[in-house]
């Protein structure tokens, strides 16, 4: 049973590191043509240069900062030029932890713009292409905080719940056109960022709260995303699939 993305053009946002990078690696291995985004101009240029000199011509990195409307507009205009995009993974996301009474409209806008509005805008461009093709697979990366919550997470939880709501509605609207839309909600994932923002002791404490006794590796999340976007999935749509080592069951 094989997962193969040959002849598929795949957009993955926030693919320079963390979960998005693992998803990109997974798709690359299976033959996809990739459009990948990150925020840092120099890094994007470097990655494109490196791929070029290595003879890799099926990856294009695009610089886009979802907190900057100008940058978003220019990215969306670029997206419009693609003739076909079969798969879209809205992965880029941010979090800022604050108790509700300490949050500002600025926090609200920043988180909701990046986690919700830009995915919406991207889907407004990519969705019609998929409908026209009669083929599409969309995965929106939400979070366990779309399902449960904890203090300080009001803005993030709100954005991820909304993303799931968008997912479900698009699934229902587009099912008959063979465009399947799902959300994947990872639990605690051991990205570079997680490693650097937590001390060893904090990581151990976190681990002990997860039934399987460890955090997820980004590649474990990526494999589920890949399955849902592959031709092995032809009937799962409108779901928010939680992958968390049992965390939300406790």
């Amino acid at each position, binding site marked *: *049973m*094989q*997962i193969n993305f040959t002849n598929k053009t795949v957009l993955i946002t926030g693919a320079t590191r963390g979960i998005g990078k693992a998803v990109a690696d*997974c798709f690359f*291995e*299976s033959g996809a043509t990739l459009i990948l985004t990150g925020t840092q101009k120099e890094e994007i240029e470097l990655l494109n240069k490196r791929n070029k000199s290595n003879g890799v011509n099926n990856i294009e990195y695009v610089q886009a900062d979802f907190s900057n409307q100008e940058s978003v507009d220019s990215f969306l205009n670029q997206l419009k030029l693609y003739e076909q995009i079969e798969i879209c993974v809205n992965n880029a996301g941010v979090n800022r932890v604050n108790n509700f009474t300490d949050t500002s409209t600025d926090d609200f806008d920043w988180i909701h713009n990046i986690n919700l509005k830009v995915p919406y805008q991207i889907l407004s461009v990519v969705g019609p292409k998929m409908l026209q093709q009669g083929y599409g697979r969309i995965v929106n990366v939400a979070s366990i905080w779309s399902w449960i919550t904890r203090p300080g997470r009001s803005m993030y939880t709100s954005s991820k719940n909304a993303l799931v709501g968008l997912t*479900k509605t698009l*699934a*229902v*609207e587009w*099912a*008959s056109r063979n465009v399947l839309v799902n959300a994947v909600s990872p*639990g605690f994932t051991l990205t570079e960022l997680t490693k650097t923002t937590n001390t060893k002791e904090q990581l151990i404490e976190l681990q002990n709260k997860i*039934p*399987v*006794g460890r955090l*997820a*590796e980004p590649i*474990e*999340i990526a*494999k*589920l995303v*890949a*399955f849902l976007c*592959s031709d*092995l*999935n*032809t*009937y*799962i*749509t*409108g*779901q928010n*699939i*939680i*992958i*968390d*080592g*049992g965390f*939300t*069951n*406790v």
Partner: protein
Amino acid sequence: MNISFINKVAIVTGGESGIGKGIAEKLLSLGCLVYTTGVNDKPEWCGQYDKCIYTKVDFLNQDSLDSFINEISQLSKIDILINNAGIQIMHAIDNIETSDWDKVMDVNLKGPMKIMRAVVPVMKSHKEGRILNISSVAGLISKPGQSSYSTTKSGLIGLTRSSALDLATFNILVNALCPGTTQTEMVEKVLNVDQKNAILQNVPMGRFAKVDEIANFAVFLCSEYNSYMTGQTIVVDGGFTAR
């Protein structure tokens, strides 16, 4: 990504036809050794695979079930258990024969628990296992006349959640899969055209699931490509419950 089950051993209950057969055949085609069961004599399809071992088991007969359980608990290795066998008896709540209720509980809920109880020590000894309970969208939503069926399918979800926690540290992942209406011989037999159309109006994909579509995801969840999802209930229903 290449999903393979070479050197793996699976048990799939209720493999005579329908979803169970689909999952069993998929595992077999990917190199798995599969123990499967049914209430009738060995079905023809099973004979086409060297690695298919069929046992006649009636979950309504405790002796029959216990003897199967005894057999599998002797196995030195079990990597995968798929609790798929299930029955449905329709009755409104004010019309339930206790004996009918018991039948549905025995096959759909008590059977899976007994088999899990027997298989888990074997899985624990290898520190590896995948258990998949085939629930139903009827475990999440329902319709008139389904009280016993829905109770057991919701029950399987609870069994899944709790046993996932019991087994999390042993690298044994337990999940439930809820198929929507699936094109099986049973559905063909039970539903007339009008009933089918009535359901289809509410399925955004505009068609029933094919057995293969359920089997693909079942097999993915039981493969090495799933190493972090546990305690989950995943719905494969073409958008039916999202609306």
